[in-house]
């Protein structure tokens, strides 16, 4: 066991791809502590990938890339500006509302952040906004990406924990909208403290809203197809993914005409690379899950927790703290595929609804995308604005407050996440 841990730590420190960090640790554990033939590594890798629902991942990555490289994101920014541009700190509001809409199209927080960053951060700088707080605003809005459906984190979580992808997606809608409102309120309070700087709000204009809305209608078809298709029971999440790709491509080629068809192979290859990098981790993690099951790790933890007089409330609190810490220092997909096979059975043994627990975890992980030092959305926004992560880290705790409050709300009032999936019964 010591050798396994040593190799795990060495690979992690050396910056080896996570697929190797996980794979080597699992294979070494098998060799050193069990009599199971090593062929189980290849077999579990295959089985981990042998899943139709998992196919939503490449589809939603491709639809996100089409959205990012075409005219869809720009049309939605226009609509958001007409909708909320009259509020103080107007571009903070525009960024948050745009991210909320884009979350309904792409499955990834960093895709939303990339699209919004490249359009809005230069404009924020030009208007004299505090640039570090602007970066924090765009990054924090990225956390909405995996909370509001579709969501790659939710697909992986549903896979690992044997939950329904559709039910997870439904459960994310309400907390996502609450988080979006909470972020806007926070930014408004922030901008109000410095009224001399944030003076660019323009009066609300119904004519402008109508015009922006007309231009955005084709783009808005996408979230309607995706979220509506899943909620209305027309399609499964994987099928919604493929419709998003086809519709997104069609809308961009026919209406906005910003995407060149010749660019499609490049975007597709990029989709393959990014999907393979995420999904090979999911496959490798199923070796891990097998080991965890064989050695009954969840039973040990649940037993220990019972012995310590543990309650559900305490367990959830401890898991939230653990995940916030993990989210700060770690990559989310790897963290979730290592931890969920252990934590989910414990939660079930303690009588927590698996869907509730899964949704709480996905919100937790979404916050981890933002939280420095290792938060991908913050990296992306920092890279676009050419600001050091350290400088942004000094202010990013402000928009993290409403996100953590939403997490607490969903943790201790399960109805917030469970209401919608249940109401549609």
């Amino acid at each position, binding site marked *: 066991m010591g050798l396994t841990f040593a190799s795990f730590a060495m690979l992690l420190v050396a910056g080896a791809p996570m697929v190797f960090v996980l794979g080597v640790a699992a294979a070494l554990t098998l060799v050193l502590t069990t009599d*199971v033939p090593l062929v*189980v590594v290849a*077999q579990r890798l295959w*089985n981990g990938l042998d899943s*139709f*629902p998992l196919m939503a991942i490449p589809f939603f990555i491709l639809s996100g890339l089409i959205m990012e490289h075409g005219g869809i994101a720009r049309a939605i920014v226009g609509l958001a500006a007409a909708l909320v541009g009259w509020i103080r700190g107007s571009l903070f509001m525009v960024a948050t509302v745009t991210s909320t809409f884009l979350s309904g199209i792409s499955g990834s927080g960093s895709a939303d952040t990339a699209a919004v960053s490249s359009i809005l951060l230069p404009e924020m700088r030009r208007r004299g906004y505090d640039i570090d707080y602007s970066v924090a605003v765009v990054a924090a809005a990225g956390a909405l990406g995996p909370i509001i459906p579709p969501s790659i984190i939710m697909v992986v979580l549903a896979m690992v924990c044997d939950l329904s992808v*559709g*039910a997870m997606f439904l459960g994310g809608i309400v907390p996502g909208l609450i988080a979006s409102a909470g972020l806007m309120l926070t930014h408004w309070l922030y901008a109000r403290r410095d009224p001399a700087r944030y003076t660019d709000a323009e009066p609300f204009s119904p004519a402008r809203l109508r015009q922006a809305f007309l231009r955005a209608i084709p783009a808005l078809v996408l979230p309607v197809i995706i979220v509506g298709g899943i909620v209305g*029971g027309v399609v499964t999440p994987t099928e919604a993914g493929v419709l998003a790709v086809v519709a997104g491509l069609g809308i961009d080629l026919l209406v906005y005409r910003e995407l060149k068809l010749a660019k499609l192979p490049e975007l597709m290859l990029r989709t393959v690379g990014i999907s393979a990098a995420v999904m090979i981790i999911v496959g490798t993690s199923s070796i891990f899950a*097998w080991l965890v099951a064989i050695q009954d790790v969840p039973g040990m933890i649940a037993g220990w927790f019972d012995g310590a007089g543990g309650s559900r409330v305490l367990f959830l609190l401890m898991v939230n703290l653990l995940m916030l810490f993990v989210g700060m220092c770690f990559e989310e997909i790897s963290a979730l595929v290592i931890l969920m096979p252990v934590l989910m059975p414990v939660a079930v043994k303690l009588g927590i609804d698996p869907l509730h627990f899964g949704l709480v975890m996905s919100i937790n992980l979404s916050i981890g995308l933002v939280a420095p030092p290792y938060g991908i959305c913050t990296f992306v926004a920092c890279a676009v604005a050419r600001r050091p992560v350290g400088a942004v880290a000094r202010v990013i705790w402000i928009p993290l407050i409403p996100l953590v409050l939403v997490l607490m709300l969903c943790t201790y009032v399960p109805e917030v996440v469970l209401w919608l999936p249940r109401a549609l019964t």
Partner: protein
Amino acid sequence: QTVTLRSAHTNAVGEVQDEGLRFLDRRLRELTGNRLGLQIYPNGQLGNELPMIEGVALGTIDLAVPSHAAFANFVRDYQLLDMPFLIRDYGHLMRVAGTPAIAQLAQAAQGRGFRVLGLYSSGVRHLMTRDPVQGMAELRGRKIRTQQNPVHVAAFNAFGANATPLAYGELYGALQVGVVDGAEAAYTNFVAQKFYEVCKHWTTVGWLSLTAPVVLSERKFQSLAPDLRAALVQAGEESAAFERQFVVESEAKLVEQVRAQGVTILDPDKAPFQRAAQPLYDRFLQTEADRARLRLIQETA
């Protein structure tokens, strides 16, 4: 010095196969003075049906209880048990289990490195639907989820439905929102997965008696001392008899639970279903050995 067999199944704890394997474990320990037992991994923890069987073939799992439908992907002869309405009811299954036909199937499995210790029951399969289905005519055009299996798909298409294979994990959500109109299932699935929340209608077609061979790696079997092997063979048969009886007894309770949930239970005329299924026998059973075994089972009273 106890030898423990790494044993996997896909039922929840306390469901029929779990109870069967616990019985097998108890009996083995009694017969061998605690020298042989099972370590049971429920819930598909060690993999779903196909990987589980593969695991037995590769030696990563010692013992597994897959459905005969999945096992037929490895030992084609087991497709015989997929024929709709072949096994008429639980009583018939108990009598069929002891016939040479089933022994021949086990023989065929042994040629592929699987020792079959007994034949469990996974219950008789019926139909759960969002809207009532009184008879076969009302099935026309409806999307019915089946397992990913050529015979099952062909059967439901023959019944006039639109057979729709779908991952089991997606089924609840798909039924909830209407991606599919219904699914074929046993009472135990209907209750354990709470499908009655999304399907308020239950039609007792009884189109298939799903069974589950208890499969041990032949290599593992041969590595054991002769008295342990004898104990395995004996305890395997005993546990299968126990499990099949347990299915019958627990089903009575399940029917009560289904009624208590306000589900309407419809009893359709089975004759049209049986007629529609007949062509499948010729289509899927093509070797002489298949047909001989078919006759053996049909002639079992």
